[in-house]
């Protein structure tokens, strides 16, 4: 990741979220409160507006600052969850991470998200994408394979019954819909994989 262009990555990520905002909202309307797309778009636009400032910082500081910005701007329960993911990643990652350091930091970040949401894998949440991505990193998979794994993992939340978040109020009726947070997580993973590419 020596050639990481964080400013460009932020712009591409914000574009991706904006492009898919309506899709995310539709997913969230099915089993949540229907604000996920709008919330994520607002947060990533806020990050985009300061992309150059974030990119000027060392990677750990940049990720922590992006996490804080997401906490303050995304809102809902997604703000603290996505914010915690980035803040925890920033705490553990080195300024020029190799695969081993990225994998370790990603694992720690997942633990932080699980603690923040008092959740675990299998409950139809973003963790159900993050965990398989971590495994793919551990297994040395390529960026393209990791992006595909993330999509498949999001797809795999469809038959799950929600046990956390607003969707859990629906019980069995949450079955048959993809989790919006899992989908947005997979979108971000693909964005990072395709932008950072094989050098990761």
């Amino acid at each position: 990741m020596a050639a990481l262009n964080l400013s460009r990555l932020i712009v591409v990520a914000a574009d991706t979220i904006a492009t898919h905002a309506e899709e995310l909202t539709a997913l969230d309307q099915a089993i949540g409160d229907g604000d996920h797309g709008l919330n994520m778009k607002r947060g990533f636009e806020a990050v985009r507006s300061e992309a150059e400032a974030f990119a000027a910082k060392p990677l750990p500081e940049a990720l922590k600052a992006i996490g804080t910005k997401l906490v303050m701007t995304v809102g809902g329960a997604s703000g603290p969850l996505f914010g915690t993911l980035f803040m925890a990643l920033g705490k553990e990652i080195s300024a020029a991470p190799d695969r081993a350091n990225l994998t370790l930091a990603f694992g720690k970040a997942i633990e932080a998200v699980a603690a923040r949401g008092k959740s675990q894998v299998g409950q139809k949440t973003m963790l159900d994408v993050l965990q398989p991505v971590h495994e793919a990193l551990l297994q040395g998979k390529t960026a393209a394979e990791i992006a595909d794994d993330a999509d498949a993992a999001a797809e795999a939340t469809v038959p799950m019954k929600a046990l956390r978040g607003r969707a859990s109020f629906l019980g069995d009726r949450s079955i048959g819909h993809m989790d919006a947070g899992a989908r947005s997580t997979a979108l971000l993973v693909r964005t990072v994989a395709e932008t950072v590419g094989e050098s990761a």
Partner: protein
Amino acid sequence: MSNVGIVIVSHSPLVAEGTADMVRQMVGDEVPLAWCGGNGHGGLGTNVEAIMSAIDRAWSEAGVAILVDLGGAETNSEMAVEMIGEPRAQKIIVCNAPIVEGAVMAATEASGGASLREVVATAHELSPS
């Protein structure tokens, strides 16, 4: 003020304000009290910045007990406590209790000068375990 402060965090500003009203009328002015609710964009929701500001307004050296409604209010409150950071964070507790009953009972306890631990325990007694 030396009594424990109470913060009310609801997805709805109307619920939060109404709960605060009940505390003021039933318990009085002896307890630092603040509320927040809504997503900051006119809709339902909670947001971390508003919670941090409410904690500031209800701040007491004896500590602050936060009463929340649904899941996101709890997650955002815990995030707010973490962002406030030490040393204040260790004097702020997010209660596991029904928001209206919890706020009134916690404030009643706090108005008599009880410690943060006692105030939180009183709120927790209302929660089916």
